[in-house]
């Protein structure tokens, strides 16, 4: 794909991102209650101070000027103060983000590792018992409510068997000095294998819960596209040449069959973001999703708005990556 096309596709993101920020801004306007009142809480202040605060926050400007200011601030990462934490919203979000990224990455890896071999096997042994089991489990996988499945996992592995922790991201005493802020990587880089196994034991259940629906979807995508590829002439030709079954599967079939899987995986990574809120709440995972849920109950609106905008921008960008991946992997498709 040429650079020009890439820039053209990037430019197409601008109206979407602008529209997304308009919606978030309108949500902000429609929020009940006066931001200054909510921020001050029980504190008694003079009318002058209140007026100054209002001016400071730009609340005395007309709506369109506020919107321009909002977009300008958003571009520089300035979302104001979190009412609840008394810190800039951006630094609160930044402190929670690594946990969410780590959980999403592990869930993604889990989904890929489980779904691709299963999908391939189901396609190769079409209509066998294995294929049927895979199909039925993928139906279960997309029908399971994540919050409930998470609780079942906790009840079984943590409460009954005591082999995995109930909640949290790391146990007491396994703090490592941050480098990437991803515990699994940091603990390895610091050579703290005790901390690594602790972090791993904490992340297994939430990552499975988060990754399961994605694994189910990817399994079906892989199975379908593998079946499609195995039907092609070049596979028959390769068989006629007398190549070994494994070699045909891996070298000729899988390479092509994985194109839809990779594309769908990129799109579904965006959906992982949405699932984070539920899974992080179930497992007491100190990430962004749980922060958003907590913020709703304390009416911490600036944080909710910033988080919604952040999620939406990430989601749009991930879909963009999925698009690009699809064209790069599949040269016959032109943007």
């Amino acid at each position, binding site marked *: 794909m040429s650079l020009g096309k890439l820039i053209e596709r990037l430019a197409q993101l601008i109206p979407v991102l602008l529209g997304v920020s308009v919606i978030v801004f309108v949500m902000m306007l429609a929020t*009940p209650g006066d931001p200054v009142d909510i921020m001050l809480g029980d504190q008694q202040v003079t009318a002058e101070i209140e007026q100054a605060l209002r001016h400071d926050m730009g609340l005395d400007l007309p709506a369109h000027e506020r919107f321009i200011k909002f977009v300008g601030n958003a571009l520089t990462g300035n979302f104001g103060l979190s009412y609840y934490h008394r810190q800039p919203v951006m630094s609160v979000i930044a402190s929670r983000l690594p946990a969410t990224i780590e959980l999403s990455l592990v869930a993604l890896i889990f989904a890929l590792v489980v779904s691709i071999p299963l999908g391939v096997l189901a396609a190769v042994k079409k209509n066998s018992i294995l294929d049927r089991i895979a199909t039925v489990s993928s139906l279960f996988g997309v029908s399971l409510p994540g919050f409930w499945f998470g609780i*079942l996992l906790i009840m079984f592995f943590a409460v009954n068997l005591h082999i995995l922790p109930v909640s949290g991201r790391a146990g007491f005493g396994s703090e490592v000095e941050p480098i990437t802020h991803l515990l699994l990587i940091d603990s390895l880089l610091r050579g703290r294998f005790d901390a690594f196994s602790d972090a791993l034991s904490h992340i297994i259940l939430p990552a499975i819960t988060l990754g399961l629906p994605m694994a189910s979807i990817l399994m079906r995508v892989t199975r379908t596209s593998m079946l499609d590829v195995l039907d092609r002439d070049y596979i028959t030709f390769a068989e006629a040449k007398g190549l070994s079954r494994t070699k045909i599967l891996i070298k000729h079939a899988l390479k092509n069959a994985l194109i839809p899987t990779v594309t769908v995986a990129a799109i579904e990574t965006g959906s992982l*973001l949405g699932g984070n809120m*539920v899974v992080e709440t179930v497992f007491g995972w100190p990430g962004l999703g749980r922060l958003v849920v907590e913020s*709703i109950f304390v009416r911490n609106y600036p944080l909710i708005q910033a988080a919604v905008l952040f*999620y939406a921008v990430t989601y*749009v960008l991930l879909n963009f990556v999925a698009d690009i991946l699809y064209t790069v992997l599949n040269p016959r498709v032109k943007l």
Partner: protein
Amino acid sequence: MSAQNAVQPSLFNIGSATGETLLMRNLKLFASSKLSVFFSAITLAFIIMAIAAPLIAPHDPNEADLFLRLLPPAWMEGGEFSYFLGTDALGRDVLSRIIYGSRVSIFIGAAVILVATTIGVLAGLAAGFLRGWVDIGISRLVDILLGFPYLIFAIALIAMTGPGLQNIILALAYKEWVIPCRVVRGETLATANLEYVEAAHALGAGKWYIMLREILPNILSPVMVVSTVRMAHVIILEASLSFLGLGVQPPTASWGSMVADGRSYMLDEWWLSTFPGLAILLLVLSINVVSQGLRDAFDPKFHD
């Protein structure tokens, strides 16, 4: 009436060579799968349970009796037969609350899909048939709404409007209509140049007449398939919102909030979270199987 039929060579007549309409053939195909029929029956049972909840439920779902709190299910030691699935921390009957909870799930699921499908079909028809600025406007809005992860969008709206039945339906429908809209727009684009639409044009039929009476009946199958799949999604989303405390408020029983309430008791009283979750799984699974059956039956690729 006869004049209307003359310009309406729709889906329902295509298979008429054998005296059988395409719709009938597809429905027969659907009914020939035992799995589809079985799970249709389960879905139907859930709907009947929701409608007839007051007749079926053994107890008042909100009647608390602290002397009967945390009773185990009937088959366990200390369980009572009249409280078959046990009682919760306030001594309310778990089975009755599950039966009443089906009302919330099914009502919200059906209401959201009804609102979203109506809006989505109209918007999709308009975008695909009228084209021009209508299409640009609707398609841009669809792109923007697709830019939000679903649950985040709903949660943000509920954070602004507060929880409650009506607000949940709106929060979910605000984004849900996008999905039928995209399907209908694509199908309309594909249909708009077919002969029978041109014939209707030539006969002087108005735009809305063509959209609603000519095109719409021909694209109903994909709409139906999409609505069933999406209903399963919406039920899980509603349960997730209820689980997070943003759904229907207590004391109204909903499956998601029952799972959430049971969480604090999972050490000993496992049944509190397990059974309502099982109900969600069974209903959503049934709808998913039904929708897959419908898709297979209605998709010509799967026909001989």
